[in-house]
């Protein structure tokens, strides 16, 4: 139909190959400022910082020693070595708290701007649709990084303050010095950060589908929960390697001697796949979308 072909031909209104200019990075800087000065973001980061503190208090205040079989792995080790607080806190945050905050930030990216009415003004500024998506994704990735870092850094500080710290016994039984242990913890944190990037891309895509930010946030969080449930069903074994949460708990591989980077690599590749697929979907959707809000 000719009318249709007209509208699809016009559906990609601009490419992002405009002349490079000195202010090319301004939008990213502005995005980061708006994101990290926002009360909601700071509140979420505060909540993430509270996780290691709560764990530390729970261990300190609990009268009896918990048996190693109960509670999350590593928990029983915290009272022996404060650095394990970081690992425990990340392990507890990864399935729910981190995806929750990322759902909020990623779901808000486009839908939030649309609901405020700022999306149309960004586009006629003109921000460029693809450039705006890239900047938005970079903002979410920055939040993933900062969120993970907040858990890791408060975990380290609180662990140092509340518990004895000495040579660290790895899962393989070898012991390493504090310097090496801190190195391993940075690797674990990077692993967690990378693990969140796939979900961020999904959230960005969902955010281009609606002008109701709360809907996009909820849908992203629901996605993360559903995928983790699917990952736990043994009947769906064939599907598991494709689920973005599949390698999430494999960061323990980074706590063995000799260190194994295999799961780190597989996880990174899987997350990259999600970024490519959902990034392309987001671009495909947003580049042709009528902005009517």
């Amino acid at each position, binding site marked *: 139909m000719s*009318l249709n072909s*007209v*509208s699809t031909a*016009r*559906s990609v*209104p*601009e*490419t992002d190959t*405009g002349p490079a*200019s*000195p*202010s*090319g990075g*301004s*939008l990213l*800087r*502005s995005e980061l400022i*708006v994101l990290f*000065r*926002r*009360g909601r973001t700071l509140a979420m980061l505060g909540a993430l910082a509270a996780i290691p503190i709560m764990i530390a208090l729970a261990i300190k205040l609990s009268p009896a020693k918990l048996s190693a079989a109960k509670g999350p792995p590593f928990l029983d080790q915290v009272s022996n070595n404060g650095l394990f607080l970081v690992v425990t806190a990340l392990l507890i945050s990864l399935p729910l708290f981190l995806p929750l905050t990322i759902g909020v930030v990623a779901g808000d990216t486009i839908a939030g701007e649309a609901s*405020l*009415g*700022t*999306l*149309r*003004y*960004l*586009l*006629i*500024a*003109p*921000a*460029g649709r693809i450039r*705006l998506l890239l900047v938005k994704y970079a903002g979410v990735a920055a939040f993933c990084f900062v969120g993970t870092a907040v858990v890791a850094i408060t975990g380290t500080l609180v662990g140092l303050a509340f518990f004895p710290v000495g040579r660290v016994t790895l899962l393989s039984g070898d012991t390493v010095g504090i310097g090496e242990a801190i190195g391993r913890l940075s690797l674990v944190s990077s692993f967690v950060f990378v693990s969140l990037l796939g979900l961020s891309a999904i959230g960005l895509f969902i955010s281009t589908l609606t002008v109701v930010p709360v809907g996009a946030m909820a849908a992203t969080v629901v996605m993360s929960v559903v995928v983790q449930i699917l990952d736990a069903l043994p009947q769906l074994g064939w599907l598991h390697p494709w689920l973005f949460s599949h390698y999430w708990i494999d960061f323990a591989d980074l706590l063995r001697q000799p260190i194994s980077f295999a799961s780190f690599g597989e996880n990174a590749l899987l997350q990259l796949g999600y970024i490519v697929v959902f990034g392309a979907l987001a671009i495909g959707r947003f580049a*042709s979308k*009528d*902005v*009517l809000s």
Partner: protein
Amino acid sequence: MTSTIAASETVESMTAPDAALAIETRGLVKRFGTQLAVNDVNLSVPRGSVFGFLGPNGSGKTTTIRVLLGLAAATGGSVRVLGEEMPDRLASVLPRIGALVEGPGFYPFLSGTANLHRLDSADRFASPATRTARVKAALERVGLSHAAGKKVHAYSLGMKQRLGIANALLMPRELLVLDEPTNGLDPQGTREVRTLVRSLAADGITVFVSSHLLDEIELMCTHAAVMSVGRIVAQGTLDELRRTGEVYVRIITPDDDLARAALAELGIAAGYPVGGRLSALLPDPSIAPETIVSALVAAGARVRGFDIEGATLEDRFVALTGEGFDVAQ
């Protein structure tokens, strides 16, 4: 103007685009589902004009503006803005346009200044070095300097509207597209906008302004187009729009029923009085005023004022878009 037949349209679209036009649409169509929000619109906005875009609620003004700015894709037809084919050249044309579309949109948790910084940083052609100065100047120009540091959630409707206009003025522009700029403004603000538009026009900037306020348009525009149910029903200079040869009779009377009956006898159909004044189109301009007055007096209507004059923009607007108050679609 409205019912271009297919053949003449083809001829039109084959002729070279007019470089003297800031906005030119040919056969523009925008469909929402089954509804034609914009239906075969041919706009010709001359460069340097102050162009009023009129039409009742829901007639398709904002939708047309969205398509002009590349926010929505046209279902059919062609659009040229500042001489460039749209939406292909969107990225290079948009920096030359300042716009206010369907009210302002801002981050409520940021101050007015921070909001303008944010939107300015989205424009790759806006220099960060001059940003602070440009934001300050734009805020000053709309009289918001004193509220610049206030969070936008604490702004009144009119203050937000002013901030929206400031955003359109952040960079030197060739074309300003203002969708109902005086919405929510106090009388001073309305006057300011009028003065602003005039001073911009004096600098050679084309201003495309949509409004329902006909006196506004009459006071500041050189050209206008009237939309009704997605179509343009009239377009041209203000004088062309008013100069239709139509003559109206205006009668001030408390007995409008009697007067209407007397006028009907003479073949003059009057509407309902507005502000105590009856207004009616004279179908035959040669009817002598005294004939009408004596008919009114004979019918027992107390005539307290009487006048015969040419059409105002409001007469034309109502004649073109209909008396009815209900939204058409």
